[in-house]
């Protein structure tokens, strides 16, 4: 039905992949100009392809951008005998096949029914009713349909018995949003990088862009994968690219170690993903021997989703979430993200703000029908997700206040905002979480890129040495200020709407069934985090741009403004940070209905939403909904404004010209500050409790007993010893005395004859 757009699917991935290959193989020889052109062009081309797919998708739904599609069901009338029902359905299907505003899919639901998907209002269609009447069937309107998706199958990968995995790319509403973000923001960051990395040697330059393109390709595989396994390929791919890019300056062992740390922590999470996959497969197979074992999302969601599931499915979901904590830097596996700042700043912007870290959110959203009902020993998995997210958000936000390194502030901020997204996911508000994902991509990217410009200009990363840069770098200042305010949730900026939507969904979740007080608690936790976010955002801007310049690092005496290649992405992203809020305005008044909550509604049909999955969830029209919504907006704005005010007071109004910040915080506050600066000593705790024992026991054990003893002495030396022993044994027989040999002849002859004799007896 949609041939040309479907063909774009592999192209979207191939273009960056080929770019990576080209730059990797030939970049060094062809010079920086070629490398940068190719590298910047590929995500741009991919972006255009993705946009084409986007428009194709919405055209395929046959209606205005966000109109609903309905599911109509043709089945036997109540009370009628269902003999030759299948034949009647087939006939009806055939006569309806010619209509191109309907999409027919036979669905087994007890008795076979015919499922039709089409625009809303089709239930009243006269022609449809005539067809149904003719075949003694009746039309029933079911829930809103899942809208169209593009599928592109490259071929079967694994086919063993019941288990079948294809290289299938599936692009639906959820994927396309992320694809646009990845390629769009990716393009801007590539553009920025051409200037940021401009002073490097050709080889390094080419290597950088190779990795960056490869990352884009892997991330696209991740979001376009039609089954868990293909997603996992992308998952691992981005993990590897993250390692390569964090440890980009590998000659510095500290930086290389940071890359390794990121990779190892990610790997631990990956183990969770793999185990989760196994659990889900086993859960599938428990349905019977004929069930096709497929990790295809549609199949998994249909088979395992939509109902309360305990046991294996719950365990599998929990394990998958553990993997998400690794990739998206939540507690307990968040410790790699601050260290990942060792990589070049555009890398941090792309990978650790906009794209890779959102993979966890994407995974859970993808499998939301399963997560919706999953429980583990009575506790809903999504509750755990929300709890972890909120806690992470709060503690990381607090840690961000204590950081002096500009990038570390942003790193902890990212962890914190990701916690917000997981809170939204846990409240089954996938749309809100995805909305925050998009806005966060914009304002975090602008903050990181701006930080990169600042670092470039001042040759230092410590905010203690910055200050007063607003006069030197105005564009950077204004764009970063906008981004910081969006991050803080300043009213009417994008971050405000997305953050508020998440908090609101937590609040509404508290009104639905189960564990209300926890959700209220999470709401207040989120609110507190919002306050902290505003504080550290303002602190960031204050210490960097206000007051007097404190000298910068070596060679940073005279900071220069950002060059145009760095400034234009900042500009674009700054605008997006302001206006992206339009995608998710709350529906406060009736006149806003048409344009309200565009993004969440767009994504809603593809994911499980609280409104449909939970009992007692307030309806969008109810009074409770509206009143809480307005209250939430107000409270959220107040939290943000309070935070900005606090930040202004401490770091904006009277910035001292000296570098001793201890004069600002004295006494017991100094101890608090120390704790925050060390991020609650989490790294140290992990090191003491897990890493050191592992090194001491596990690796020591493996080295001594396995490698040294078993392999070196046992296998290798043992082989030699066996050979020697054998030869010593056989040596006895070689006396050289011929008469003895004659005796051996006889012995041999006796043996052979005995064998022959016994053989002939037994047969």
């Amino acid at each position: 039905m949609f041939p040309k757009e479907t063909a774009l699917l592999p192209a979207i991935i191939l273009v960056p992949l080929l770019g990576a290959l080209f730059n990797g193989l030939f970049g060094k020889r062809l010079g920086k100009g070629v490398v940068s052109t190719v590298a910047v062009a590929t995500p741009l081309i991919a972006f255009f392809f993705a946009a084409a797919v986007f428009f194709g998708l919405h055209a395929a739904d046959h209606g205005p951008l966000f109109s609903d599609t309905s599911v109509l069901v043709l089945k036997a009338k109540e009370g009628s005998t269902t003999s030759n029902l299948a034949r009647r359905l087939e006939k009806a299907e055939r006569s309806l096949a010619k209509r191109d505003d309907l999409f027919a899919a036979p669905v087994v639901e007890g008795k076979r029914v015919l499922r039709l998907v089409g625009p809303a209002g089709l239930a009243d269609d006269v022609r449809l009713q005539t067809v149904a009447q003719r075949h003694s069937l009746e039309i029933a309107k079911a829930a809103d349909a899942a809208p169209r998706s593009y599928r592109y199958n490259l071929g079967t990968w694994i086919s063993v018995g019941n288990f079948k995995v294809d290289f299938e790319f599936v692009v639906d509403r959820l994927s396309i949003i992320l694809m646009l973000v990845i390629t769009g923001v990716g393009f801007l960051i590539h553009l920025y990088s051409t200037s940021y990395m401009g002073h490097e040697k050709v080889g390094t330059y080419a290597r950088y862009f190779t990795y960056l393109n490869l990352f884009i390709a892997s991330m696209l595989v991740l979001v376009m994968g039609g089954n868990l396994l293909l997603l996992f390929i992308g998952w691992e791919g981005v993990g590897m690219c993250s390692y390569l890019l964090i440890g980009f300056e590998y000659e510095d062992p500290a930086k290389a170690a940071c890359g390794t740390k990121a990779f190892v922590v990610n790997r631990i999470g990956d183990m969770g993903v793999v185990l989760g996959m196994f659990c889900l497969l086993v859960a599938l197979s428990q349905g019977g021997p004929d069930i096709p074992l497929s990790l295809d999302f549609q199949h998994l969601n249909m088979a395992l989703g939509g109902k309360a599931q305990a046991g294996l499915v719950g365990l599998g979901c929990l394990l998958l979430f553990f993997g998400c904590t690794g990739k998206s830097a939540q507690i307990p596996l968040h410790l790699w993200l601050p260290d990942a700042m060792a990589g070049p700043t555009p890398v941090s912007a792309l990978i650790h703000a906009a794209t890779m870290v959102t993979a966890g959110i994407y995974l859970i959203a993808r499998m939301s029908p399963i997560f919706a009902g999953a429980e583990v020993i009575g506790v809903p998995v999504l509750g755990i997700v929300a709890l972890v997210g909120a806690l992470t958000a709060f503690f990381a936000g607090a840690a961000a206040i204590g950081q002096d390194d500009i990038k570390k502030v942003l790193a902890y901020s990212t962890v914190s905002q990701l916690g917000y997204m997981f809170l939204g996911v846990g409240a089954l508000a996938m749309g809100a979480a995805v909305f925050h994902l998009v806005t966060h991509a914009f304002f975090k990217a602008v903050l990181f890129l701006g930080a990169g410009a600042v670092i470039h200009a001042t040759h230092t990363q410590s905010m203690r040495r910055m200050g007063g840069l607003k006069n030197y770098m105005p564009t950077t200042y204004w764009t970063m200020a906008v981004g910081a305010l969006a991050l803080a949730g300043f009213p009417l900026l994008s971050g405000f709407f997305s953050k508020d939507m998440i908090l609101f969904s937590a609040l509404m979740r508290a009104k639905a069934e189960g564990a209300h007080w926890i959700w209220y608690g999470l709401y207040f936790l989120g609110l507190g985090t919002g306050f902290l976010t505003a504080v550290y955002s303002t602190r960031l801007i204050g210490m960097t741009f206000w007051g007097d310049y404190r000298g910068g690092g070596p060679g940073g005496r005279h900071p220069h403004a950002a060059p145009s290649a760095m400034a234009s992405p900042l500009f674009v992203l700054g605008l997006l940070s302001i206006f992206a809020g339009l995608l998710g305005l709350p529906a406060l008044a009736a006149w806003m209905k048409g344009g309200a909550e565009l993004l969440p509604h767009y994504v809603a049909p593809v994911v499980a939403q609280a409104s449909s999955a939970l009992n007692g969830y307030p309806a969008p029209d109810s009074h409770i909904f509206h009143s809480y919504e307005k209250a939430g907006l107000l409270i959220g704005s107040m939290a943000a404004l309070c935070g900005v005010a606090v930040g202004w007071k401490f770091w904006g109004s009277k910035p001292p010209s000296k570098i001793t910040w201890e004069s600002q915080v004295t006494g017991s506050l100094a101890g608090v500050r120390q704790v925050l600066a060390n991020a609650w000593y989490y790294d140290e705790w992990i090191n003491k409790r897990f890493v050191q024992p592992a090194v001491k026991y596990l690796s020591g054990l493996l080295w001594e007993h396995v490698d040294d003893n078993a392999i070196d002495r046992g296998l290798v030396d043992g082989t030699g010893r066996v050979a020697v022993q054998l030869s010593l044994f056989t040596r006895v027989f070689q006396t050289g005395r011929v008469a003895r040999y004659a005796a051996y002849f006889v012995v041999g002859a006796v043996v052979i004859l005995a064998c022959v004799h016994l053989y002939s007896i037994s047969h």
Partner: protein
Amino acid sequence: MNSLTTPDAIQIIAALLFCIGVFGVLSRRNLLIILMSVELMLNGANLSLVGFAREFAHLPGKSESAQVMVLMAMAVAAAEVAVGLSILIALFRHVRSVSVDHPQATTLRD
């Protein structure tokens, strides 16, 4: 005794002859005696063959091929004895002994 037929007897004698020859090869130290024991073994085999030739002579097929084989074996035995004895003489000229245990004579060592 009445169940022991002639063919059986011939085979038994041939087997005994062969085994006595084996005993001689294994237990005697004098090379000449050893050669004689080898002859005994050969004769045992020949006798067995001739016995079988006679036993199956009435059957279609060439049972006289066994007798031809025996003739060939005898010829080979004669040649072998000649060559063996000449080796023995050559050996004797060197070490002045026909004992199999003589260290320089019959050990396959450097």
